[in-house]
């Protein structure tokens, strides 16, 4: 294989084959996974595939039932992590937290090379950050050529273990910081990747092009913004609809001179691989896309076993619809063995129906309070402050009850999810800090967004409660036009959806005088109507708290 113009995916295959578990692994987009698998298998042999529904026992090993019963003493299976140093995980976005933690530790120990296949289309689901952080690469393209095992063997031999020229480290660090990469770990990975690239090229030492390529493969997909340190913190003045032209951006960059000129080659290589959207975001001064996306994922990931936590086991003479707790069953059978063997003869383990134990599961549905806040018009300021206070009050109590809070605000022309379901007070504070008020009332859009969130929560096994703070007087349509009659029609239609799904809902009327429009809305939504003129944050929090309690009982 000599063609220098091979794709990034091909390079990643080569690097993983050369380094094995010492270089972590890769996140592979679902649609190129098959292709990647073929390429990787050609380069370094077949890899063990597992499904993301695997449990902790499968990773760490558990009791082998058949062998245990046959031999009359516990026989343990080795567990995937002990048996394999390379794992291919399908639908890795579904991995539960505990499994992801175990894999993260194995990655830290250089005991695992992980290929995490994930659907990267959806914004919401992605691979757990603790894993993707430890895997240097992200592959979304096809591998166009194949490495042979001979290629790899040669490269392994050529792999340099000498000190890397300090200037490369300087430059990689410099670039990584300038594009907003949060952890030096990425640079450590990039240095290794550069060694690998040089080895695959048959070079004795790392050259500029190897460093540039390594930078592109490892750093580019982690970039949060282009190197424009001056703009990073400033809120944008440009409306996002009008991204500045590319030429402006490069000018700004030249002026800022964020990196020494000699690191430019890495930067150029990285830029060629940056996602298009990022360029626009960077140009607009909003450098936080990647960050917020990661955070979102982290907060939305469901901790393992929340749907029902095991609180012990119980005796069960029939197993219909229940899962046998094998360990507990064996434990309960164990003390009887000498006696049973005497009666039945032989050395086999004897388990009778009396021994059956099944897991006792305590169902606890996680409740999520979704606030939909009318941030329109003149009273908005007051309402918003109180709503924000209520969200934080509720959230501050959430650690005890393990509930979540989300918030939608609607004003002017559209509605916006300010805070996706979260349990973190810090995130809430940040999300709520810069919430503006004023403008018209796109009530229907607000209800739509809240409805979508509620559906999402229900889909993931939670119990949503929607709290709408409004006077019920919508005057902006879904399309963002001012039309009272149509706005009313649409908000009624949106309200009916809630009734149809029988979501729990509260309408808190915060206008100075209770409004008929709000009551009407509540009726259509089949929601509880609570007029609360001049309500404080604590007042608002009280009924919400009760509703949450009821929802998660």
């Amino acid at each position, binding site marked *: 294989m000599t063609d220098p113009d091979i794709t990034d995916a091909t390079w990643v295959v080569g690097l993983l084959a050369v380094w094995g578990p010492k270089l972590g692994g890769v996140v592979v987009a679902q649609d190129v996974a098959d292709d990647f698998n073929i390429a990787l298998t050609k380069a370094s042999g077949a890899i063990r595939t597992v499904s993301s529904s695997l449990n902790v026992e499968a990773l760490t090993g558990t009791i082998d039932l058949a062998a245990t019963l046959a031999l009359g003493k516990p026989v343990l299976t080795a567990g995937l992590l002990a048996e394999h140093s390379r794992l291919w995980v399908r639908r890795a976005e579904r991995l539960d937290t*505990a499994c992801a933690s175990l894999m993260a530790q194995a990655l830290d120990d250089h005991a695992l090379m992980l290929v995490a296949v994930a659907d990267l289309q959806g914004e919401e689901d992605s691979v757990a950050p603790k894993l993707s952080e430890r895997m240097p690469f992200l592959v979304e393209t096809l591998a166009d050529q194949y490495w042979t095992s001979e290629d790899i063997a040669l490269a392994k031999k050529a792999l340099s273990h000498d*000190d890397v020229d300090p200037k490369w480290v300087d430059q990689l660090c410099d670039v990584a910081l300038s594009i907003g990469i949060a952890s030096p770990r990425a640079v450590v990975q990039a240095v290794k990747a550069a060694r690998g690239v040089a080895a695959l090229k048959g070079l004795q030492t790392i050259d500029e092009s190897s460093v540039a390529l390594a930078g592109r493969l490892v750093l580019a997909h982690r970039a949060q913004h282009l190197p424009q340190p001056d703009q990073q913190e400033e809120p944008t003045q440009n409306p996002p609809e009008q991204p500045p032209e590319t030429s402006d951006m490069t000018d700004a960059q030249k002026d800022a001179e964020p990196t020494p000129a000699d690191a430019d080659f890495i930067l150029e290589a990285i830029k060629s691989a940056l996602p298009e959207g990022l360029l626009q975001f960077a140009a607009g001064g909003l450098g936080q896309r990647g960050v917020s996306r990661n955070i979102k994922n982290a907060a939305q990931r469901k901790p393992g076993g929340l749907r029902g936590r095991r609180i012990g086991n119980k005796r069960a003479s029939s197993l219909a619809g229940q899962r046998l707790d094998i360990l507990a069953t064996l434990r309960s059978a164990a003390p009887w063995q000498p006696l049973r063997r005497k009666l039945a003869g032989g050395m086999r383990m004897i388990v009778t129906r009396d021994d059956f134990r099944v897991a006792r599961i305590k169902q606890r549905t996680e409740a999520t309070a979704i606030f939909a806040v009318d941030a329109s018009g003149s009273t908005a300021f007051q309402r918003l402050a109180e709503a924000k206070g209520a969200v934080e009050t509720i959230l501050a109590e959430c650690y005890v009850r393990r509930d979540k809070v989300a918030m939608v605000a609607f004003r002017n022309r559209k509605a916006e999810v300010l805070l996706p379901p979260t349990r*973190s007070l810090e995130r809430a504070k940040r999300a709520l800090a810069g919430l503006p008020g004023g403008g018209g009332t796109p009530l229907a859009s607000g209800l739509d967004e809240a409805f979508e969130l509620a559906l999402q929560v229900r889909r993931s096994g939670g119990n949503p409660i929607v709290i709408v703070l409004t006077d019920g007087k919508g005057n902006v349509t879904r399309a963002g036009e001012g039309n009272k009659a149509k706005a009313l029609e649409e908000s009624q239609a949106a309200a009916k959806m809630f009734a149809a799904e029988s979501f729990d809902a509260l309408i808190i009327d915060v206008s100075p005088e209770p409004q008929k429009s709000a009551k009407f809305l509540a009726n259509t939504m089949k929601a509880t109507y609570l007029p609360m003129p001049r309500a404080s944050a604590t007042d608002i929090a009280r009924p919400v708290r009760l509703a949450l309690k009821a929802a998660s009982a």
Partner: protein
Amino acid sequence: MHNNRAIGKVKRPVFPFSAIAGQQDLKLCLILTAVDPLIGGLLAMGDRGTGKSTIVRAFAALLPPVRAVKGCPYHCDPASPQSACDNCRSSDVLKSETIQVPVVDLPLGATEDRVAGALDLERALSRGEKVFEPGLLAKANRGFLYIDEVNLLEDHLVDLLLDVAASGENLFEREGLSVRHPARFVLIGSGNPEEGELRPQLLDRFGLSVDVKTPQDVASWVEIVKRRDSYERDPERFYDQWQDEEKKLRVRIVAGRTKLKEMVVPDEVQEAAATLCIALKTDGLRGQLTIIRAARALAAFEKKKTVTLAEVKRMALPSLRHRLRRNPMDETGSSVRIERAIQDVLGL
């Protein structure tokens, strides 16, 4: 089920504690928990990739070895029978051995069996005996229990931990077994605050708390990357290179422990700590106790003659940061509030 997943894989030396660039606060606080375990553990919250777990694992290798009763699953201290398990207490002659201080990882998905212990299946099946198989709590006795992502720990495990941490022993009453064994350990927790809150009771259990951040300057990054790269290429050699540093630090910790016993805390220091806690309205006495203990450990570690207000000032933030009552309406961070109080109260 309890097998080590590293079976068959050669264990490489861990990254040396002294070689960790930056993270001074976290490193110092860890050292202080080793100088005086009564400080009561450490919580390190921060972003991903700040090297929290690397530091804790490195810390484990740094700790000076201790004497323990040979063969005792709880590695009881032969010199302190009052804190020993029933077995060691009732034996007349105890053989002792030198062991590494246990630093036990409590993984997120651990079952209660694994943590608290369970009926020993092997013995039960093969010999029909009911014997207790100790869990992670037993393993961590006299050492450290490390929980990464402690804020994601399941509630029933949190309950168990709180119970054990409060009493210093694990009471096991299940499967027809009734066992009680010592489980005194220093709790080390880490996590990313973006992912969830800690239960307040658990938060209070941690003596010190550190906010971990990654430095954002090129020079520090270059140093971190160079050391890491050098370590990963040849862990053994790297480890050897840092052995002298490690030894020095270990000696200082041991010296700090000795010095701790004679370290006096003057009344004015006691009063300052109390006034500070009152000014900040921290719940309970634990905050005040922690400041004093941490300040004393710091003075001992740094070979000071006596504890002064300077130590109180330095330890106030890590001792109190996580104990302030949250006011949802007040955006001021804990650190700012504490610094303000230090200025008001101590005039420093």
